[in-house]
Every structure is written in C-alpha cells, then in structure tokens.
C-alpha cells in the first residue's frame, strides 16, 4: 500500500493588499483542500527563516513534503530543505511554486496562483500542466516598432516568404541604433550595419511598411487577430517624393529634431535623416502652420515641390488587418535627466544626455562629429540668444561621463539599465580619439562589462588614458561660467571638486511612455518596472501570456543590440514555426483553474 503523503504548504509572500495583487488568504484556503495537504501556513516574506524551528514544526505535523509558494520561492528553499532534513525527511521533497515565474505575479491573478500551488502539490511543473489547446494560424504577421529588433524580425519572417506588416510610430525605421556613430564593443560603424537592413525592409515585397502609424485596436484571438492601424497622414507622397529638400528650405517653422535628440533643428516638413526609410519627406502635423491653422496659413511648400508630392489636406487612414502573430519590438525611451536637478540638465547648457552625445559625436550630426561645447548664438528669428552646438565652437578640456543616471536608484528606476556602462566606455573612447588633449573622467558605481568581449573592451579603454573614478557624482554646479563637479573618489578616498566643461549623463533605459496603453490593447502584462512581461523568465523569455504575441528587444527589458537581434531572430523562428505547422498554442489565460484541476483527476484516481 502506498503511504499517504503529508504535504505542508508555506506561502512566503507578503500580501501587498493592492487590488491587483494575489489574494494570499484565498490561495491558502484553496491549498487546504488539495490532496495530501495537512498544513497551510502564510508566513510572509521573512528573509531569515529559522530552519530549526521549521524542522520542529515539520516533525510535529509529520510532514514529508513541503511546497514553498512565493513570487521567488527559491530564496526560501534552503531553510525548508534544512528544516525537512532536520525532521528526518527527504530534502528532495521541497517543491517550489513561483507566482511571478508562472505569470500570477505580474497579472495579480489569484486563480493562476491557486493553479500554480495545485501543480506544485501534485509535483508537476506548472508549465507542463498548463498547455493550452492548439489553434489554427493566419499566415500574416504584424511587427510593432521598427528599431533594430523589429527590422530583424521582419526581415527574417519576410525572408521565409511570409507576409509582414511593420508598423512604426516615427517617420522612419531604424530606432535608436540609427542615431549612433559606433557600437560597442567592436566600435563598428552603426550605420554600416543598420542602413542595409533598413533598405532591405523598404525593398522587401513581403513587408508592408507603415511609418508614422500606430496600432489602435486589437481583437480576435491567437492565430487570428484583427488589428486596426491608424496611418497618420504623412502629407507627402512617399513614392513621388525624391527627397530634394526644396519644401524644407521654404518652410518657416523650426522645431527641435527628434533624430538629433534635440541638439539641432528641423522644419515642419522634413526627413528625419538622409538615409531614412522610407526615403521621403513628411509633414509634422503638430507644428505645420497649414495644419494647425486648419488650412488658413502658409502652404508655401506645396508650390515648391516639382513632383507635386505634397498634399497638405491628406487625411489619416485607418486600416484593419488580420494577422496570426504579433511581434512587439517597441524598444525604450531614455530617462528624463531633468528629474534629477542636482546634475543641472536643462539648466546648465553643457550638461547633455547620452543620446545627445551620440549625435554630437556622429559624423552625420550637427557638428560633423566634432566634440565641442555649446556656445551662445543669436537667433535672429526669435531675437534671443540661444545655447547651440556648432562645429566651430570651442572644444572641452575636461569631459565627465556620469553613469547610472536614473538607474539603480530607489528614487527613480531601481534596475540596472545594462547598456550604459558600455556605451559610456564607448563615449570615453571617442573623447580620447577626437580630443587627445582633453581629460576624460568616467564616474561609475560598479563597472558592468558582462558581455562577450566587454571586459577586453574595458581594459582597452583604460589603457587609452581614461580616468575611471569609482564613485557617483553628487552634483554639478556652476560659478562664474565654469562648471564644477563634486563627487567622491572612493578608491582614492577623496572628495573631488574640479572644473569640467562638458558633462555627459549616461541616462538609463525606460519603457516607452505609451507601453501601458499598448499592453492594454494587446492584453499582455507588464512587470513591476513597466517592461512587457515574458511568459517564463528562463524557458520562454520572448513569449507572453497571450498566444501568438511575442516580445523582442528592449521592450522586454534592457539589453544591447546583439541580444536584441538574437531575440528578434528567435521570435521570427517561433512565428514561422506556427505559420508552417499551421498551429499555435492558445493563450494561457484561456486555461481556467478547472482545466488544470481536471488534468490531475486521472492521476488522483490511480
């Protein structure tokens, strides 16, 4: 006769009480009724569990199996393993039930949490028990976001002969990488890698590219999603426009250039950058005088266009498409450095952010790649003096690069943004290369050179004579036109206070502002930092709770270009697998608690 097992369920989680958090008491009640469970204990997230007293309890209750349920139960496992061993039990019999790992945490789903505990009690991994039914798949795919991630995924899928709709919010594809001069750690020319891919997207017959467009609605179910896309009117015919620049020359409206991260200007009718794909001008509806005045003012550009390509009265178009899979590759935005007043960003002209520096040091940027300081220049139109970058401006003698701006900081974003240590080293290299007489200081907390060849890159940059200072900068101040930096040099045991001319803030990566909205449309979850939640941290880092919806690139969490590209290709393979086999897994949410319970019934009878 098989000996009845006596299982104890320990819930090592503190209920936050928030409406969207897991109801631990309900989970506990549910667990009490599961087969073999003789004890359920909600003990909160006490990091210092005492194995001896646990062992006593285990002995008293004659437990021979333990289920540890929590967001991250692995933290607590060792105490239970020892406790069970002390009580004479088999330490192998400690099962983990992770809420977060199986999608209950991010969604605050109590039903899911119950299912996860049920699986652990039965000794079956949740991922195995919860296999939704297969569904037929529509062969078309939607890719949202045309950064390097979205581009890669689109090219891979289209390359297999399948149809892709690529929807990009901005006037061109390319994302952040298009703005960069070099990429770490190889110091390759970013444009040389990206531009051919961008051109391929523009030329690929299987890719329908909609720029200046947004997803407005998603309905249907895995394998068969109906998606509404709003194509904002570009107001310039993409096909007819030859990008001659005649319209832009006459346009009176000057606004900061997004592509140059605001360190140069563009007109209301513009092309984001010369290699843009599609290689055509567009009209920014927010600043164009004709548009904002309802057709009453200006309109000067229309007559200038020899190709008659400008249609200022063009209307937005809303289209509905049907797709089987959706790839989300919406990337990131950078931390707003103005939130930390003590670094003076926004107040002090020569405190700039990383993206601004990328454009400053880029040969195609407004200074032709010269690293200079901003200088006051009279703006005749506005009749004011403005701080601007120009190629002939004086060069900085002391350049400081400050790491972890807005990252690893409990006042802002707690997580590490993962790429900024490396791009800061890249920046320092460019300073040393272009300004050999300048001092370059890099202030870091910890140097995170975790990737392939990264440590070698770090060593190389050190040898170039960059002063790496361990310590976070506390503040940048200005007196008599000279900026001063104050920070602790921890290894040198000194408080530094010295003059600097150019300060680069290595801002962290953040989820894009509208990611919550998009998550809502798609019905996928976001993690506590706002990144899109993957289905399973280890086993399924690109899938989501919803069948047929995948995440690739930084929108899933900070990562560099190689990781983004690898993820994008991996997603493409999964999409193709579903299209070719004609079947895909339904969403996990489609499975109810009852479905999971039912899957154990035959076992229970046996």
């Amino acid at each position, binding site marked *: 006769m098989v000996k009845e097992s006596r299982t104890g369920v320990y819930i090592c989680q503190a209920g936050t009480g928030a409406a969207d958090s897991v109801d631990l008491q309900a989970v506990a009640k549910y667990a009490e009724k599961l087969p073999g469970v003789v004890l359920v204990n909600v003990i909160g997230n006490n990091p210092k569990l005492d194995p001896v007293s646990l062992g006593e309890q285990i002995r008293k209750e004659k437990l021979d199996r333990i289920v540890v349920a929590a967001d991250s139960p692995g933290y607590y496992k060792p105490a239970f393993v020892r406790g069970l061993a002390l009580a004479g039990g088999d330490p192998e019999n400690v099962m983990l039930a992770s809420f977060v790992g199986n999608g209950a945490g991010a969604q605050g789903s109590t039903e899911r949490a119950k299912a996860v505990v049920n699986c652990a009690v039965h000794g079956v991994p949740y991922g195995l028990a919860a296999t939704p039914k297969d569904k037929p798949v529509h062969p078309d795919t939607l890719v949202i976001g045309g950064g390097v991630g979205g581009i890669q995924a689109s090219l891979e899928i289209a390359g297999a002969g399948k149809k892709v709709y690529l929807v990009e919010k901005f006037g061109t594809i390319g994302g952040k990488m298009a703005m960069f001069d070099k990429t770490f750690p190889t110091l390759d020319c970013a444009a040389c890698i990206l531009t051919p891919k961008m051109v391929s997207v523009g030329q690929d017959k299987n890719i329908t590219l909609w720029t200046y467009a947004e997803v407005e609605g998603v309905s249907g179910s895995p394998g068969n999603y109906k998606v509404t896309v709003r194509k904002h009117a570009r107001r310039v015919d993409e096909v007819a426009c030859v990008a001659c620049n005649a319209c832009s020359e006459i346009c009176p409206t000057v606004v900061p250039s997004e592509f140059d991260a605001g360190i140069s200007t563009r007109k209301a009718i513009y092309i984001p950058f010369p290699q843009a794909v599609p290689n055509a001008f567009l009209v920014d509806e927010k600043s164009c005088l004709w548009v904002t005045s309802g057709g009453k003012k200006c309109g000067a550009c229309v007559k200038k266009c020899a190709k008659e390509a400008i249609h200022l009265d063009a209307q937005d178009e809303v289209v509905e498409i049907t797709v089987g899979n959706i790839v989300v590759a919406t990337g990131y935005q950078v931390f707003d450095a103005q939130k930390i007043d*003590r670094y003076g960003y926004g107040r002090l002209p020569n405190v700039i952010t990383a993206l601004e520096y990328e454009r400053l040091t880029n040969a195609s940027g407004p200074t032709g790649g010269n690293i200079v300081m901003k200088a006051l220049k009279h703006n005749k139109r506005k009749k004011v003096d403005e701080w601007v970058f120009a190629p002939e401006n004086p060069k900085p003698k*002391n350049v400081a690069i400050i790491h*972890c701006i807005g990252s*690893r*900081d*409990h*006042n802002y974003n707690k997580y590490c943004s993962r790429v900024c240590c490396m791009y800061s080293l890249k920046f320092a290299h460019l300073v040393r290369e272009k300004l050999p007489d300048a*001092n370059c*200081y890099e202030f870091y*907390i*910890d140097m995170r050179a975790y990737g392939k060849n990264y440590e070698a890159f770090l060593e190389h940059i*050190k*040898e170039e*004579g*960059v*002063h*790496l*200072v*361990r*310590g*976070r*900068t*506390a*503040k940048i101040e200005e007196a008599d036109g000279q900026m001063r930096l*104050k*920070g*602790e*040099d*921890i290894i*040198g*045991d*000194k*408080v*530094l*206070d*010295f*003059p600097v001319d150019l300060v680069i803030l290595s801002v962290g990566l953040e989820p894009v502002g509208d990611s919550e909205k998009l998550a809502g449309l798609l019905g996928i979850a976001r993690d506590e930092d706002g990144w899109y939640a993957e289905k399973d941290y280890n086993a399924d880092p690109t899938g989501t709770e919803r069948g047929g919806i995948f995440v690739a690139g930084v929108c899933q969490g900070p990562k560099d270009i190689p990781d983004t590209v690898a993820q994008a290709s991996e997603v493409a393979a999964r999409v193709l697998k579903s299209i070719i086999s004609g079947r895909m897994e339904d969403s996990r949410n489609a499975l109810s608690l009852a479905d999971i319970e039912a899957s154990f019934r035959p076992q229970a009878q046996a």
Partner: protein
Amino acid sequence: MAVRANPNLLEELKHYGADDVTKCYHCGNCSATCPLSKEPFIFPRKSMRYLQMGLGDKLKGNLEPWLCYYCGECSDECPREAEPGETMMSMRRWLTAKYDITGISKLFYESWVAEAGAIMLVALLTGIGFYWFGMTKGGGDFGIYAGPNAFLPAHTEGNFFGLGWNVHTFDWIMGAVLGGLLVTNCLRMWWFTTGSRKDMKVPLGTYIKHAFLLPWHFITQKRYAECDKKKPWIIHLILMLSYLTLLILIMLFLHHMHAPETHWVHIFGYASTIGLLGTAAYALNGRLNKTETHYKHSHESDLIFLFLLLYVGTTGILQHFAYRFLGNEILANFMYIIHMMGVVPMLVLEVPFSKWAHLAYRPYAMYLAAVQADVIAEREGTKVPALAPQKQMTA
C-alpha cells in the same frame, strides 16, 4: 595592529536605530553631497563601510558621526535608501554608550523600558526627597513658596551662591556629579579617538591652539549653519540657547524671577520659555508626523527626551503662574515638586547617559577634529590642496 571584525556589530547597532546599512552599495553620493564632509573627514559613506564590515574598533575611534548634524541631504539622495543620515545618528547613540563608563547608557539605549523606568524611579525619589527636605531642613510650611522661609528655600539669605542648606545646594552637588561623569566620558572619547592612536601624536601646543573651539562651537553651533538647510540649525540654536538661558536664570537669578515687580530677568525668562516649548513642540510634531528627513526615524530615546523637555517646560510655567499670577503658594509649591520630578531625571539621566550628552560630545569632537586635522596636515606635508584634475588619478 590587526583589525578585528565583529560580525554582530550590525545587529548591535540595530538597537540604536541603524536599520538600512546593508543596503548601501558605496556609490559615494552621500559623502560628496554632504556640505560638512571635507578632508580629512569624509563621511558618511566610510562609516557605512565600517559598519558593514563590523569594524567596531574603527567605529569607536571615529569622530565623524559627531561632525554630522543630520540635515538629511545624504539620505534624501541616497539611491539605495540606505539612510546614511540616520546611520550617523545611530552611531552617535552607540558612541554615547561606548563613552559612558558606567554602562547605564548602553542599557538605556538598548531598552527604552529601562530608560523610562529609571526616569520614573528618579522622579519618584525626587518627589519624596523634596517633600522630606521641605518638611525637615527647609521652611516646613507648604504654604510659603518664596523667600527665606519658603518650604523649599532657593537660597539662604546673604549667600548669593547658595552655600548652606537650600535647593541650590542640590544643584551644585548634582552639577559636580554630572560634570565628573561627562569629563570622564570625554576623556574616554579622547582616548578612543585620539589618545590611543599611534598615528595621532598631538603636541600640547595644538591642543591649546584650538581650545577656543570648545566654547565657540558650544554657543554658536556654527557648523550646523554650514548645512544647506538653515532651518534645522535655527530651531536647534533657539532650543539650546533657550535652555541655557533658563538654566542660568534659575541657578543664579531665581529670586528676581519670583519678585512681583517686572525685572529684565522676566523678559529673558519668558522669551526663552516660549523658545524652549515652541521648538520642542515643533520637533515632537516633526517626529510624530515625519515632516522632515531628520525626523523620519525616531528612536525611543528621542521621544522620551522631547517628552521630558515639554514636561519640564510646562510644569515650570504652571509653577511660576501659580505663584506670580494666582498667588496660590500651596499650588506653586505643589507644582514645584512636580516640576522637579521632571528636572532631576532629565539632568541626572539624560545629560550623562542619553541624548543630552551630545551637548558636550559634539563641540568636543569638533575640537578634536580640528586638532587631528592639524596633525594629519603636518604629517602629509602641507595641507592637501583641492585636487587639480590634471595631476590626479592618471590611470
């Protein structure tokens, strides 16, 4: 000398209010932000390190906690919520316990029940003692409040300093005991921080040269004014000057306070009473409602201290009011005893063993810091100049 690590140091410091030290990842933001952190005393980060590593001996010889006035800027900006400001505060409590030779301070800080119990015991003894003294040695008539025949005579006729059997006699005895304890503890502080250190050979001249700093920092708290936030300094200065004024008035000019006609003493007396109660109430409100960073964390000893201050202030007013405005001498005598039941424990327990000790340690630490800075500068040649970036840290 080998450095010994004490693995239980962090646990120990928890009793003194340091809760978040392990969160610190040594970014150095705090030390660079702190307006008071200047070479050769750069804090608070290094103290966080000593704590994390269990370097109790280093910490015991550390003057830096006393150089911090807890403006709270480091805590506000700390990216890890490691509360460096509160850690410095906790280290001051811990150091107070270390300096104290009797061990009473340690007991009080580690158990507020012990502190509150001791206060109540002393209060009770004071009440009984004063009544007994009034009945036997004093005037013997509970109906007389002031003058030579008072139930509790403030001073004996013709003897300004009150030698002879009167209330002031106790003042002086108490003062001598407290002074003795504080001097002993200050000597220990000197030994831990300076005297026992092989690298701190201080010439006598250096000690003498900086001696003026003691009264200077005591009266002005000038260093506090160097914080970016000025309000806490003003509050603290008002509280401290009000207290000092009242102490002097009561010790030396009590007979004027009691006189029916208005005297300049009254103006000072009333102003400082308002100052004392106002600032103590402000601080209590701050602590209860956590209005500012330096009020966010309260150790029991902070609250006990404020409670005592408010108690003493209020009962002092009532006593004075009963005599001067109501003319009710019985009530005045009664309130007098009630008042003393707060005053005596406050002076006997708080000054040498608890929060009040900082009134001596702080200026004394600043004095020692100035002395040490001289020795360090001497040792390292001239004073370390502000770093010229071209020359330092060449990789």
